[in-house]
């Protein structure tokens, strides 16, 4: 191609030798190498195999997309109050419209919904502050989020003080419960995971042995066995009379389970920190905890961002498993609503809603992690 171009160029120069050097008018690039036609040639019709693949994929799209769009948009029912309003073959979005409060707040009393909203708003505000690149006083905000906010959130959601009526955790449900479980689970799992990772890398054989055994055992069993453990066995482990709410037991199970995965993600980062950093920290006389906290962990956590975010994404998705021990988080709530005789058969609409919620959260998280990785990359 390149050779052909240069020959063409010379031929053209021969024909138009009346142009002074440098005064040749700017011509658009030839259509065969740029523009939509070239794009189609390169990306859709590159070779006989490519043409066949394009035809095959095009056939799939043409046969699948229109019925899907018809179902979801054109034939769908958007307004109404009951199942009887959905007469067409399309999606019955009325189901979502009628049940949306239940999907978000669970069985939380309607008059108290503002408490959930307020907690969510504070969390969103704090989260935004921490995620924005140039917000000031991040350390203080982080400390506030970790120490003061949980107390505020607990008081607001659970109530029983300051004239707020007490709302049992059995009434929590839907998206709000998913968020509570996920956020608390992430924070505990990350903290515990860092300790486990440090323990596994410890020079003390007893400590590294205990941590390794814990991590490897947890990683070899499914989450659901741990959740059953937490929901059935935890009450038996504790002295008579001591008991937690079911949701709290589930959170403990989730945190214990995912801390093993967090530990592995962090350990990857710890191993990526060059040995000289450990030696340098020791040489300037820092104690173990100070050298870890001031020198090693800041670097190690940076290296482990992809692993940590992947673990967070898995944790968020796996909060759906709570429905197996009878806790109505988002999927459980939708499943229960779609099994209601009044709305029987509206599974797909409900699943589309759940899928969208999880997709938006998880996809955004993975993109944010990629952005963070690029931003923190100080390598060459």
């Amino acid at each position, binding site marked *: 191609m390149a050779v052909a171009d240069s020959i063409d160029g010379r031929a053209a120069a021969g024909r138009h030798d009346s142009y002074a050097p440098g005064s040749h008018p700017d011509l658009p690039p030839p259509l065969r190498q740029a523009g939509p036609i070239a794009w189609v040639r390169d990306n859709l019709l590159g070779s006989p195999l490519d043409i066949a693949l*394009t035809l095959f994929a*095009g056939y799939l*799209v043409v046969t699948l997309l229109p019925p899907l769009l018809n179902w979801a948009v054109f034939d769908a029912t958007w307004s109404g109050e009951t199942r009887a309003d959905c007469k067409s073959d399309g999606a019955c979005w009325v189901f979502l419209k009628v049940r949306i409060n239940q999907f978000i707040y669970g069985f939380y009393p309607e008059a108290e919904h503002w408490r959930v909203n307020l907690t969510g708003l504070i969390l969103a505000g704090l989260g935004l502050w921490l995620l924005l690149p140039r917000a000031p006083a991040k350390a203080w905000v982080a400390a506030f989020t970790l120490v003061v906010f949980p107390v505020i959130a607990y008081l607001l959601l659970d109530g029983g003080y300051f004239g707020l009526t007490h709302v049992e955790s059995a009434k929590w449900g839907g998206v709000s419960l998913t968020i509570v479980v996920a956020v608390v689970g992430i924070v505990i799992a990350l903290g515990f995971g860092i300790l486990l990772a440090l323990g596994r890398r410890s020079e003390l054989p007893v400590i590294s042995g205990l941590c390794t055994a814990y991590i490897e055992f947890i990683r070899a069993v499914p989450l659901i*066995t741990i959740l059953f453990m937490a929901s059935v066995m935890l009450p038996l482990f504790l002295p008579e009379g001591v008991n937690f709410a079911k949701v709290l037991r589930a959170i403990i199970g989730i945190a214990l389970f995912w801390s093993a995965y967090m530990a592995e993600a962090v350990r990857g980062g710890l191993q990526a920190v060059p040995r000289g950093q450990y030696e340098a920290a020791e040489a300037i006389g820092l104690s173990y905890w100070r050298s870890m906290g001031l020198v090693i962990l800041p670097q190690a956590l940076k290296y482990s961002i992809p692993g940590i975010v992947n673990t967070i994404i898995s944790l968020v998705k796996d909060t759906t498993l709570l429905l197996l021990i009878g806790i109505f988080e988002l*999927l459980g709530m939708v499943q229960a609503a779609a099994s209601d005789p009044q709305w029987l058969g509206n599974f797909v609409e409900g699943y589309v809603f759940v899928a969208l919620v999880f997709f938006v959260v998880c996809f955004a998280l993975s993109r944010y992690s990629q952005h963070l990785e690029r931003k923190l990359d100080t390598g060459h």
Partner: protein
Amino acid sequence: MAAADQSLATTSKTAPWYDPAKRAVFIQGLMIVLTAAFVIWIVNNTLDNLARLNIASGYGFLEERAGFGVPMSLIAYSPQSTYLRAFEVGLLNTLLVAAMGIVAATIIGFVMGVARLSSNWLIRTIAAIYVEGLRNVPVLLQIFFWYFAVLGALPQPRNAVDIMGSVFLSNRGLYVPAPIPETYFWATPIVLGLSILAVIAMRRWAKRRRELTGKEFPLGWATLGLLAVPALVTWWATGAPMEWSMPELKGFRFVGGLAVVPELVALWFALSMYTGAFIAEAVRGGIQSVDRGQRDAARSIGLTRTQTLRLVVIPQAMRVIVPPVTNQYLSLTKNSSLGAAIGYPELMNVSGTMLNQTGQAGEVLGLTMAVYATICLGIASVMNLYNRAVRIPER
């Protein structure tokens, strides 16, 4: 020099709590004591609680009558069987769906991973939508989708979806023709096994010859011939000893053929498509990790396009692909426990029923966890062996 060291050590005597050696002993001793105390505390509490609630302990219940039925079993089982038998049924069902899922997910993953790197925009985009869409949605939701929304919405057996008159899909599951071996059927698998051994020997010989002389051997055709010809000849010589039992509609249900319960179909589809999306990412990463220069170099020393792929790109990509794919196999196996949510009688489903009936949660869950851990260990060690085989020896 030694004398100076000694005097230094004696003069600057460190306090015992600053001496690293003594500190290590102290910290580890404390850790052992704390852990032991914690374990003893939990065991004591549990024993107290069990005694108070009148729950038996020990594994004696495994010999008792289970009394519950299962919709699907690979071995003879009835409600009269023991709990141990029920547990075995669950274990085999777990292994079945895990094996089916691993095969399907690997195929989907490699196809989608290569498709994401295609030069064809349409293929590339479809693969990207598939991977990002399925990866970011909970697998339990996907299992529910297939079970309740797709299979649940299929017609009754009498209006079953008919695929070529031999495969039927209805809300009772998938019915496929079942092979029934006859008298001399055993001859064919034995011959096939011998052929596989011969192929392995031939590949070794061809590799050694290539390394010594640089001559290529037409491995693909030779393998195909060695596998197909003897087996087909044996098959034909013994008189094609295989009958097919076709599923037939009798009244309201199908008889004959092999029935695949809808729970298995849904779990299998969901697990393989979900895990396939993750494997696709691993495959894409592996192929992209092979430096472009490797390809250029291979082409410049005169390897053909296929040889470049087979001898240069794939061996290097596999080294990167195998570890994450191993993790995906493990997580698929562990995720098969979600079959419990739709009533597929795998390990977790059976143990859940056992747990409810006997109340012996500790024993049942302990046994289940131990079995899962063993399965995962088994898969991990097989994949480690494979990883050692594809690893490029470093000097």
